[in-house]
């Protein structure tokens, strides 16, 4: 499977998009809205192309999982959605990404505005070396909220939404580094929730966590999708199957298949998807 050249894959792409197309029609049929519409997205690191002609429509208030073997471009793709990928100076993109109808690459649309709407949780818990309170209050403060009473309210609500309030409410002024890895990750989720984004991007958020912490984060994701649209990259297929509504399978920088999670895992349309989910490679 992996010996297939890039050109061959490009040639096969219409199959993948075709499958995805039907699912979109179904989504539109049920009057669901999309937060992201990605059209023919290509991405290069310097001269190396990492993403090939991605087309995808990400539904609102759903959990969308992105799976695929390591190096398939799933993390790159996720970071393109809030333009974090541009932290690498040599990155070039082509194609369009529309967030609620607005082109995120357009000059009129500020990257800070985009990231205010599209929050992110990272692979490794990365709290600031500050107190728990200051971690969560960071976003609102950056965006100009200074009133203590408002901040208190936002911090409490965010920590509650991230299901960690009970564990930390008595030590909000302690350094976040003192918490366990799982707690730190939920603090990072609370930090992302504090500015109430529409979309939360999660980049393998449980890969550095123990099974119990992982379970807590998974439960949390289920809870959060009532309010937020979540896109989660995971290397763990069971996790994708457990928590997502839709799943996209990436391989070598290409979107192979994108469908309802149930459908994709029980009856994949593409042979490569089937090989991957049945554990034949990756």
């Amino acid at each position, binding site marked *: 499977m992996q010996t297939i050249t890039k050109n061959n894959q490009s040639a096969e792409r219409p199959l993948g998009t075709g499958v995805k197309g039907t699912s979109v029609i179904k989504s539109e049929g049920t009057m669901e809205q999309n937060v992201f519409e990605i059209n023919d997205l290509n991405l290069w690191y310097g001269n190396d192309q990492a993403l090939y002609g991605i087309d995808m429509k990400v539904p609102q208030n759903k959990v969308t999982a992105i799976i695929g073997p390591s190096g398939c471009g799933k993390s790159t793709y996720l970071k393109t959605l*809030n333009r*974090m990928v541009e*932290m690498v*100076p040599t990155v070039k993109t082509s194609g369009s990404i529309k967030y609620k109808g607005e082109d995120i690459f357009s000059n009129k649309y500020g990257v*800070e*505005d*985009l*990231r*205010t709407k599209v*929050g*992110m949780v*990272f692979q*490794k818990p*990365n*709290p*600031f*070396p*500050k107190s728990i309170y200051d971690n969560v209050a*960071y*976003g609102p*403060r*950056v*965006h100009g909220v200074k009133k203590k009473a408002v901040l208190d309210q936002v911090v409490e609500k965010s920590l509650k939404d991230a299901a960690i309030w009970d564990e930390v409410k008595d030590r909000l002024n302690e350094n976040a580094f003192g918490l366990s890895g799982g707690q730190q990750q939920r603090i*990072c989720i609370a*930090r*992302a929730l504090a*500015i109430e984004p529409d979309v939360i991007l999660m980049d393998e958020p449980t890969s550095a966590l123990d099974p119990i912490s992982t379970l807590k984060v998974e439960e949390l994701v289920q809870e959060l999708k009532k309010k937020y649209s979540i896109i989660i990259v995971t290397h763990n297929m069971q996790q994708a199957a457990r928590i997502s509504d839709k799943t996209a399978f990436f391989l070598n920088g290409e979107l192979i298949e994108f469908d309802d999670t149930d459908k994709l895992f029980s009856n994949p349309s593409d042979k490569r998807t089937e090989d991957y989910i049945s554990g034949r490679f990756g």
Partner: protein
Amino acid sequence: MLDTNQNNIQKRIRGRVLLNNVLKVLFFTSTTVGLIFLALLLYRVLTQGIGYLNGNFISNFPAPYPEEAGIFAGLIGSIMLIGIVAPVAIVIGVGTAIFLEEYAYKNRWTKFIQVNIQNLAGVPSIVYGLLGLTFFVYMLRFGYTLIAGGLTMALLVLPVIVVAAQEAIRSVPADIKEASYGMGASKWQTIRRVVLPAALPGILTGTILALSRAIGETAPLIIVGAATAIYTIPDSLLSKYTVMPIQIFNWTGRPQEEWQFVAAAGIIVLLIVLLLMNAIAVFIRNKF
């Protein structure tokens, strides 16, 4: 045949081990030379100076008689000088470091600035004195004043602060910067709220060490005209001034032996100030 060979080898091994042990002692002794010198220096200065070190010495201005001479003008002058050096050098030095680490493209121009800073760190301090003499004293017409001395010293310690701040900023983990950008914080917000607070201990430690160098420097201040006989506290940036090392230098140069004791007392005060600054640096390093 084989036996004698073994014997020879045994002998040679013993010889080699002996040489190893002898030279180990030599290496250790060499290491102690520096330490012994340091101990001797401190001992001499303390025993010579302690007799003259009293309240009057701290609070007196320079005087023609050793018993009445004091370091007050130098102590206050040094503190005021640092009052100029610190803000100027910290703002410019940390600013340079932020620019080089966070904003500058990694191109030839940036590399040039970097090499230039490295070279500046190796320029003898007295050459900074000549720069200060031409530029601050004559061209800007500051004359032999506190501000001329302060700005000269600020330029002198600038490379040290830049390098320390760069190292501190570089050691801030990339993932917390990403977290900040990921929440829609701008570049400057990220630097101000995340990078600088995380780099602060390193920056402060380097800065304090740089400032303690400024406190001990003598030569460039002689060139830019720090005075020796000062009987009033500087009341403006354009006042004449003196600093502790200049006072010590002046006393050291006098022929009568009593002045040596006065100089030693001055050195004690200078070393105590340096010790305090270094203690603060160590405290900061351990606290964070």
